[in-house]
């Protein structure tokens, strides 16, 4: 690697030739504040928080985009630099709805932190005209409050550059500039897929998920209701971050313990229905292959991806597996099989999920998601909302004992837990499919490492009993678009494709704890969180979905065989064809 030598605040630094000042400073353990900058996503040097002095340069330089060069001398904290940053920040604050006490981001807000760190004294020094923006709460999953927007464009950059959707962007100009949809269309009339990546990258309280936490607490307090909860695989890999634990800490035991202490009557694991998904999906795949069904078959776990497919590839909705997502399968099982087992009226059950995802809030409102005649799932909350609830309930998370999930519907295989990482569903399906096709023998292969890792698109070919099975995995919707365009053009002939809406899969879902840009820009959070899941898988003695005893019991006692009529009624769903533009004139 070619390097250059420079001095930052008098410290000698050797940095890669193509590094920016910001990256070089990091090597010297010098933090330069940023606000708009997100590595690889939004590199526009717009907010001017990262201004530094470069010897010999005219004016101050934006460290996030200014390249280093040999012999350069940089000063990151001279009085001039500090004064400029503070003034710029005060100007941003002059049109910011400062209600920090009640703001959802209070305590985790990048703007608030900058104000504190840069020593903002008179926050109202430049107050004058203010933009008053209408709040957009039309979408099922989120709220956009432009009164707290700082126009950093991180949200619109992730929407367009990472997800390839671009339903929000900068409208008008100058003081009137606003981030919004075209023609100020309400978000629910656009092709927004509810992925929540915009929420995950927003530095302030302008974007946040809709919450039902109060409804959940009211249900728990109602003696007539049975309130059960399930937690998705990826939640355990990230929840700890909200309590100061390092990224990638597995908190499975404390997760179960905290849900019990909140007051849920039964605490279940979505891993159960992930295993169930594999049983149904592997069966569906084998049927499609042997009976000449539509191929490639594409996974249907990610509701953001499903909505994207419906908008942008409506001709390929027949390729989608008809399997409900694990969240919905779980809800459906609880209100049918489990309700019967417990002698509960399905109407008395309030089924709650904890998800790394905001699109799950949309998914539960979809048609054909009510196996018992009532919605499969009543409320879905994000990992972030759960963290907030744990704090509100006065639970000392880090001191909790490790507890298990309730039985049945509380057990999961190693194959299930890796659903949370891109490639995980594929690997889990391959484990069971290969085992089935090779005669259900012991010693069938477990690890399919070619489909692991954070690459946006992965391909592999496996020899299964003499048949070459081609598979592909994509995460992030821009990557999904690239992959499907290839399939549509006939340039690729896969049998099975896994697609996850968020880059890196659910571990990096739009409902996961927000990671401060100063960490996110220098750490691959997707890889760190995925590691936690793969180590849970490795430590599990049960690595195949078909080995799950609760799943086996469900089929034996209730459903019959995978793909049976009853299984179809309860565990499968249907899709609609949408258009990219759904506005009505």
């Amino acid at each position, binding site marked *: 690697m070619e390097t250059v030598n420079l001095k930052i605040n008098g410290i000698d630094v050797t940095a890669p030739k193509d590094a920016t000042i910001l990256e070089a400073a990091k090597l010297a353990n010098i933090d330069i504040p940023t606000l708009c900058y997100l590595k690889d996503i939004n590199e526009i040097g717009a907010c001017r928080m990262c201004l530094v002095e470069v010897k010999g340069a005219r004016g101050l330089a934006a460290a996030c985009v200014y390249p280093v060069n040999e012999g350069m001398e940089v000063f990151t904290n001279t009085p001039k630099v500090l004064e400029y940053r503070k003034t710029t920040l005060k100007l941003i604050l002059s049109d910011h709805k400062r209600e920090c006490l009640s703001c959802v981001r209070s305590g985790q807000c990048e703007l608030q932190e900058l104000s504190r760190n840069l020593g903002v004294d008179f926050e109202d020094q430049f107050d004058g005209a203010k933009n008053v923006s209408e709040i957009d709460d*039309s979408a099922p999953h989120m709220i956009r409050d432009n009164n707290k927007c700082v126009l950093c464009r991180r949200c619109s950059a992730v929407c367009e550059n990472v997800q390839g959707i671009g339903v929000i*962007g900068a409208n008008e100009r100058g003081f009137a500039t606003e981030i919004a949809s075209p023609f*100020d269309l309400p978000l629910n009339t656009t092709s927004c897929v509810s992925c929540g990546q915009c929420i995950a990258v927003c530095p302030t309280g302008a974007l946040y998920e809709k919450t039902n936490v109060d409804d959940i607490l009211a249900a728990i307090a109602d003696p007539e209701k049975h309130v059960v909860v399930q937690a998705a695989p990826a939640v355990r890999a990230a929840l700890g971050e909200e309590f100061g634990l390092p990224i990638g800490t597995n908190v499975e035991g404390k997760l179960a313990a905290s849900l019990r202490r909140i007051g849920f009557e039964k605490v279940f694991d979505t891993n159960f229905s992930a295993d169930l998904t594999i049983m149904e999906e592997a069966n569906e795949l084998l049927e499609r292959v042997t009976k000449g069904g539509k191929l490639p078959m594409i996974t249907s776990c990610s509701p953001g991806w499903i909505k994207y497919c419906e908008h942008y590839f409506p001709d390929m909705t027949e390729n989608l597996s008809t399997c409900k997502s694990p969240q919905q399968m779980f809800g459906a099982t609880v209100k049918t099989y489990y309700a019967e087992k417990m002698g509960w009226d399905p109407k008395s059950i309030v089924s709650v999920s904890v998800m790394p995802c905001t699109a799950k809030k949309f998914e539960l409102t979809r048609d054909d998601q009510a196996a018992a005649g009532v919605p499969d799932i009543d409320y879905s909350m994000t990992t972030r909302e759960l963290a907030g609830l744990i704090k509100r309930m006065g639970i000392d998370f880090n001191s909790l004992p490790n507890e298990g999930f309730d039985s049945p519907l509380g057990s999961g295989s190693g194959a299930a837990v890796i659903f949370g990482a891109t490639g995980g569903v594929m690997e889990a399906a391959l484990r069971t499919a290969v085992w089935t096709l090779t005669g259900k023998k012991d010693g069938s292969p477990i690890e399919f490492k070619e489909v692991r890792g954070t690459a946006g698109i992965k391909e592999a070919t496996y020899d299964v009993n003499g048949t070459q099975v081609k598979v592909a995995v994509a995460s992030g919707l821009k990557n999904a678009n690239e992959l499907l365009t290839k399939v549509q053009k006939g340039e690729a002939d896969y049998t099975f494709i896994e697609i996850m809406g968020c880059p890196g899969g659910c571990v990096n879902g739009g409902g996961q704890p927000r990671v401060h840009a100063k960490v996110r820009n220098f750490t691959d959070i997707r890889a760190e969180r995925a590691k936690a899941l793969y180590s849970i898988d490795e430590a599990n003695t049960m690595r195949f979905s078909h080995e799950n005893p609760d799943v086996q019991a469900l089929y034996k006692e209730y459903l019959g065989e995978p793909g049976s009529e009853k299984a179809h009624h309860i565990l499968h769903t249907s899709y609609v064809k949408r258009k990219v533009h759904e506005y009505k004139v």
Partner: protein
Amino acid sequence: MSSKICSVPFKGTKEQEAQLKAVINDLRDQRGCLMPIMQKAQAIYGYLPIEVQTMIADELNIPLEKVYGVATFYAQFALYPKGEYQISVCLGTACYVKGSGDVYDKLQQKLGITGGQCTPDGKFSLDACRCIGACGLAPVMTINGDVYGKLTPDKVEGILANYK
């Protein structure tokens, strides 16, 4: 959220659409082709309603927001058609100090539109303009070339009645 979709019905023709598609095909491989395409589209249709912006976005395979962002950034792009009667209120210095701002507000209120827009029936469009060189008559407005001077807000209704 209330959307900003133009309330005047779109009356684009097949011929206009063919013209626009020809323009796009001509320019699509050029770097930075969006602006020139939008300028030509406005020359064809007179303004850039959501229907036209959608055609441009779909043809170029870019998000509609990308087109709308440009359309609202530059003053040269109009989101509303011009009305049968085009009202132009001078907000130049002399007219403004003589109260043309109040006249402008009254017009917006009477017509139920804001500056730059057109009434849903296509009858009146309203714009602000700078000095038209009739400062002696300040405050001044024009309707399709008819000049009205020494205006006050309470004269607005009567003047509009002439154009029903």
